[in-house]
C-alpha cells in the first residue's frame, strides 16, 4: 500500500518493456501485485487528456483546435509500451485524415505527407493506408500518382502475410487494373477530340488496355463481387467490338454458382443485351431471374411491359402477379407509372377469356390494393389526386364491368366524388366494416350506414377474404376524375 514503492517502480516497469527476451521472462516472475498498483504516469495522463480534447474539438467541428491537439498527440508515437504504439499510429492516421479533410487550409501535399509518414510507422496498416492514399489521389483526379502508389504497394513484402493482408493485396491488384482503365478512358477522350482515325493507332492507349484487361481478367475470374471492375472491362471490350467475350464474361458473372448472388450482375447482362438488340425472349429470361432476386427492382416495370408485349398467355398472368407484388412495396406504392401499368394489365385481362378465374383469385388482392390506393390518394397532394382518383375509378370500373357478366361478387358503387368512399368487407365468418369519410358535397345523397363528418377509418387487418363487397355511391355513370 506504500505509494513510494509504486511510484518508484513506474519508470522501472516502463523502461523494461523494451528489454530483451530473457529479461522479459524475468519480469513475468515478479509479483504481479506491484505492477498493477502502478498509477498512470504524467505522460499517459497528458496523452489521454489530449485525445479526449481532440475528440471534443472534432465533434464540435473546431478543426483548428483539433489540429493543434493532434500535433501535441503525435508525441505518443514515442511511447515505449508496444501495445499502445499500434493503436496510436492508427488513431493518428484516421483522425489526421479527418481533420485535414475538414480543415479549411489543408492542401493535397498535407494529405500526401501524412499518408507517407503513417505508412511507414508500423507494418500492420501499410496496405490499408496505401489503398486509402490512392483512393484519395484518385478522387482528386491524380490518376498517375494513384497508380504509382498502388504499384509500390503491390510490390511490398514485409514479414508474414496474414489473411486480411492478402485480401487487401488482392484489392490493391484489382484497383491497379481499374486505374489502368481510368487512364485508358482519359486517353480515349483526349484522342477522340483529335479525330476518329487516331483512335485506332494510338499505341499508348492500347498498352493500357492490355494491362488493364490482363489484370481485370485475373481479378474477375475469382469469385466475388466485382461490379465496377466488370463494368470497366465490358466498356473496354465493347470499344474494341469484342461482343462475344463481353457476353461470356457477363454470363459467367451472372450465372456461375461460385459467385455470390448479385442482382447487379443480371442488370448488367440485361443492359448489355438491350444495347445489342437481343430478342425479347432473352431479355425476359434475364429479367425473370432478377425478379426472383429483387422483386422491387426498378427494372421490373420494364419487365412488365415486356411481358405485356409478348403473345404468350402465361406471361400476362405472370405480369399481373409481378405488378401486384411490386405495388406491395412502400417505395412503389406512390409511383403513378406502376399503377398505370397495373391498369394496362387489367385492361388486357378484361379481354381475355379466363378473366373470371383470375379475377376471382385476384379480387381480394385488388380490393386491398384499391383500399390502399385511396388512402394514398387522400394523403397525396392536390395535383396528384386527380390521377389517383382516375386510376381508382378505372380499376373499379373494370371490376364492376366484369362483374356485370354474371358473377355475384363484389358490388361496387363508384361515386363521382371519390373523396367519400365507403368500404364494406366481409370475411369468412364475420363482417368487417370500414368507413372512410370526408366532408361531402351533396347533402341529399343518402346511403345507408353513413356517418357524416366523422373522419374516422377502421380497417381491420387484411385477412385473405373470399368475398368482398364494396359499397360505393351509385353514381357510376358519373365516373370522372374530380377533386
Amino acid at each position, binding site marked *: 500500500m506504500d505509494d513510494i514503492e509504486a511510484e518508484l517502480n*513506474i519508470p522501472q516497469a516502463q523502461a523494461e518493456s523494451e528489454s530483451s527476451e530473457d529479461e522479459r521472462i524475468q519480469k513475468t516472475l515478479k509479483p504481479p501485485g506491484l505492477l498493477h498498483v502502478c498509477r498512470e504516469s504524467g505522460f499517459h495522463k497528458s496523452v489521454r487528456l489530449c485525445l479526449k480534447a481532440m475528440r471534443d474539438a472534432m465533434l464540435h467541428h473546431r478543426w483548428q483546435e483539433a489540429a493543434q*491537439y493532434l500535433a501535441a498527440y503525435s*508525441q505518443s508515437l514515442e511511447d515505449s509500451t508496444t501495445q499502445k504504439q499500434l493503436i496510436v499510429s492508427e488513431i493518428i492516421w484516421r483522425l489526421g485524415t479527418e481533420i485535414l479533410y475538414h480543415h479549411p*487550409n489543408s492542401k493535397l501535399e498535407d494529405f500526401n505527407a501524412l499518408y507517407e509518414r503513417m505508412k*511507414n510507422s508500423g507494418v500492420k496498416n501499410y496496405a490499408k493506408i496505401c489503398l486509402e492514399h490512392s483512393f484519395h489521389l484518385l478522387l482528386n483526379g491524380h490518376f498517375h500518382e494513384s497508380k504509382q502508389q498502388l504499384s509500390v504497394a503491390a510490390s511490398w513484402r514485409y514479414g508474414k502475410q496474414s489473411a486480411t493482408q492478402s485480401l487487401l493485396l488482392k484489392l490493391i491488384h484489382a484497383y491497379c487494373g481499374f486505374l489502368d482503365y481510368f487512364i485508358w478512358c482519359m486517353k480515349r477522350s483526349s484522342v477522340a477530340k483529335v479525330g476518329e482515325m487516331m483512335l485506332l493507332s494510338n499505341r499508348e492507349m492500347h498498352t493500357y488496355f492490355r494491362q488493364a484487361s490482363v489484370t481485370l481478367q485475373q481479378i474477375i475470374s475469382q469469385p466475388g463481387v466485382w461490379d465496377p471492375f466488370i463494368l470497366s472491362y465490358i466498356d473496354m471490350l465493347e470499344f474494341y467490338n469484342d461482343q462475344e467475350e463481353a457476353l461470356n464474361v457477363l454470363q459467367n458473372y451472372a450465372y456461375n454458382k461460385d459467385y455470390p448472388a448479385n442482382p447487379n450482375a443480371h442488370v448488367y447482362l440485361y443492359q448489355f443485351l438491350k444495347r445489342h438488340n437481343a430478342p425479347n425472349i432473352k431479355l425476359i429470361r434475364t429479367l425473370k431471374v432478377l425478379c426472383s432476386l429483387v422483386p422491387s427492382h426498378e427494372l421490373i416495370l420494364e419487365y412488365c411491359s415486356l411481358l405485356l408485349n409478348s403473345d404468350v398467355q402465361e406471361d400476362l398472368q405472370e405480369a399481373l402477379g409481378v405488378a401486384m407484388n411490386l405495388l406491395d412495396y412502400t417505395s412503389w406504392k406512390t409511383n403513378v407509372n406502376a399503377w398505370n401499368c397495373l391498369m394496362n394489365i387489367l385492361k388486357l385481362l378484361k379481354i381475355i377469356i379466363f378473366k373470371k378465374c383470375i379475377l376471382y383469385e385476384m379480387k381480394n388482392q385488388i380490393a386491398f390494393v384499391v383500399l390502399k390506393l385511396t388512402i394514398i390518394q387522400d394523403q397525396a397532394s392536390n395535383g396528384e389526386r386527380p390521377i389517383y382518383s382516375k386510376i381508382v375509378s378505372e380499376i373499379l370500373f373494370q371490376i364492376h364491368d366484369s362483374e356485370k357478366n354474371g358473377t355475384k361478387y363484389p358490388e361496387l358503387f363508384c361515386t363521382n366524388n371519390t373523396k367519400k368512399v365507403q368500404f364494406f368487407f366481409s370475411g369468412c365468418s364475420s363482417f368487417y366494416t370500414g368507413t372512410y369519410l370526408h366532408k361531402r358535397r351533396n347533402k341529399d345523397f343518402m346511403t345507408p350506414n353513413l356517418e357524416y363528418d366523422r373522419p374516422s377509418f377502421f380497417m381491420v387487418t387484411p385477412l385473405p377474404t373470399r368475398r368482398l363487397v364494396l359499397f360505393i355511391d351509385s353514381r357510376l355513370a358519373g365516373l370522372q376524375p374530380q377533386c
Partner: protein
Amino acid sequence: MDEDLTEGYSEPCGQCGNVCWGLTDAEQFFCKNCHNVIERTKDVVDSSTYSANNRISHFPSGGRKWIVCEGFQFILKHQAEALVGLGVCPEFKKKVLWNFWMRYLQKTRQAYTKNPRITNGSPGDITSDSEPESLALNESSEASDGKLSVCSGSLDAAYYSFAKESKSRHLMTMPRTLALCHLALLWMREAITLADLLRLVSKRHVPYINVHEHFPEEMKIFGKDCKFFIAESIPSYRMVHREASLLAKVMELPTFPPVSQDCLLHPALLCLRYTMDANLPDELHLLVCKVMEKTAMGNDFFLTFDPAGPKQRLPCYDLQAAALIIVTMKLLFKLDDQTECKMFSLRRWYMSVQPALESAREREEQAEARQAWKSKKPVVPNLKNKTLVLKRRRVVEQLQSNFHTLTGSTMEQQPPAPSSFLFLWGTEEGADGPSLHHKRLAFLMEKKGRARCLVNRKYWHPALRLCHPRECREHFLELESSLPRMYVWLLGLFSFLLGVSQAQLHGEVIQVERRLLRGKGMR
C-alpha cells in the same frame, strides 16, 4: 549505388526516375541524382542481419566514462541554477545545496569517504575536489568489465539498478532530487514552498522532465540509464514530502534554522498570500492570525524542523496555512449549507470565484493535454531499437511541423512567466473577476458585554480522534458524500491553488481542529 547498404532497392526515384540510392547519416534513403530523401530507412532491411557480436563495435566513441551519481550531480546543478534564476539567493546553489549533496554522498557512502561502495565494491580513494563541477574518478574503479558498459552510457547503471541495494542504501532518484532541493530551500527559509516547487516543475520552469538534454556532449545516455534519468511523471506532493523526511534522517541533519515571524514561510504570511489569491477580504487575515495564536501554530517550536528531535516531522507550511484559512472560514460562516441570509457576502464571493475557478481548471487541463513530454534528443533504451527510436522521433517532428504550419501556430510555445498567484482580481484587463478584498467583515462580530464574539455560535467537525495512534489513513473518501458541499468546494479551491489532493488538505484541517478544540499540543 551503395549496394551493400541499400540492399538492392531498385524502385525508381519519385522525382527524377533514376535508380541510384544512397544512405544518409540518419539512415534514410536518398536519391544520389536529385538528393530526394524518401521515407524508407535501413531498419526494414537490416534488422535480420543484426547479431550479438556487433554490439561492441557499436559502442559510441567519443564519450567519457561517467557514473550515475555524476549524472544526478549535473541535474541538481541545473535545478539550482533555475531556482537562482527565479529569485532564490545565489548562496542556495553554491553553499547550501552543494553541502547537502556532499553530505548525502558521504552518508550513503558513495563518495567523500574512506571506502566508497561503487561498482563491484572495489575500494577506491576518492578525494574531495575543490572544483565543484566534476568528480574525479580513480583508475582502479574502472574494474567494471566491458559487457556492462555497453548496455548503458554510465559505468555502474547495472549495479545501480539492483532494487534491493537501492532501497537500503537510499540511492538518488529523480524525485529525490526535488526532495533535496526542498530541504535546501527550507534551510534557507525561502518563500518557495513545496507546492510552489512542484508547480514550477510542472510548468517546466525548473528542469525535471528531459533534463538529460542539458548533459554535456561527452556524457551519453542510453540503455539502462533511462530508468534513472528519464521521468514520465511529476511526483506528487506527498511523495516528495516523504522522500524529504527520509533524506533528512539519512543525512542526519541538525535542527533547521528556526522559522519565525519575519520569515516568508511563516503561516501568517502564507495565509495572507492565499487569502489574496482566493479573493477573500483582507480582514480575514486578522482573524486567521487569531486562530493561529489559539492553536499555537505560529510559534517557532512548532514550525521548526528538527530531524533528530523527538517529533521528526517535516511540517507542511503551505497545507497548514490553507487549513488555518479554512478553519477560520468555518468559524465565521459555519459552512454547513444551511445558514443563510446574513452571510450574503459569502454567496457573492462564491459567485465571483466559482467561474474563475472553473475556467482555471479548464485551462489547466488544456495545458496538460498539450504538454510535451518526450525530448528532442531521444534516448535509446537498447541498441537494437536505435534506428527505430530515431525514426519515430523524426516522424513525430515532421508530423508536428506539418500540423503546426497548417494551424499557423508556432512550434515553441513559451510558458507564461511564473507567478505566485493563480488568479488576478480587480478591474484590470485579463482579471478573473471583481476584487472583494476591501469588504468588511464587521457584521460577523457582535458585542456581548465587553468582548466581541462571533455571531455564528456553532461549529461542526468530523470525528477528530485518530483510529490508530501511529497511522491514521485519510477518511476523506468515505466521508466526502456526507460533508457539506460548500466545505467540499472550499477544499477543492484550496487544493487547486496548492496542487494537492482534497483528502490531504482535509487531513490538515482535522489536525488544526484537533489543536483548536482540544487544546494545543494534545493528540
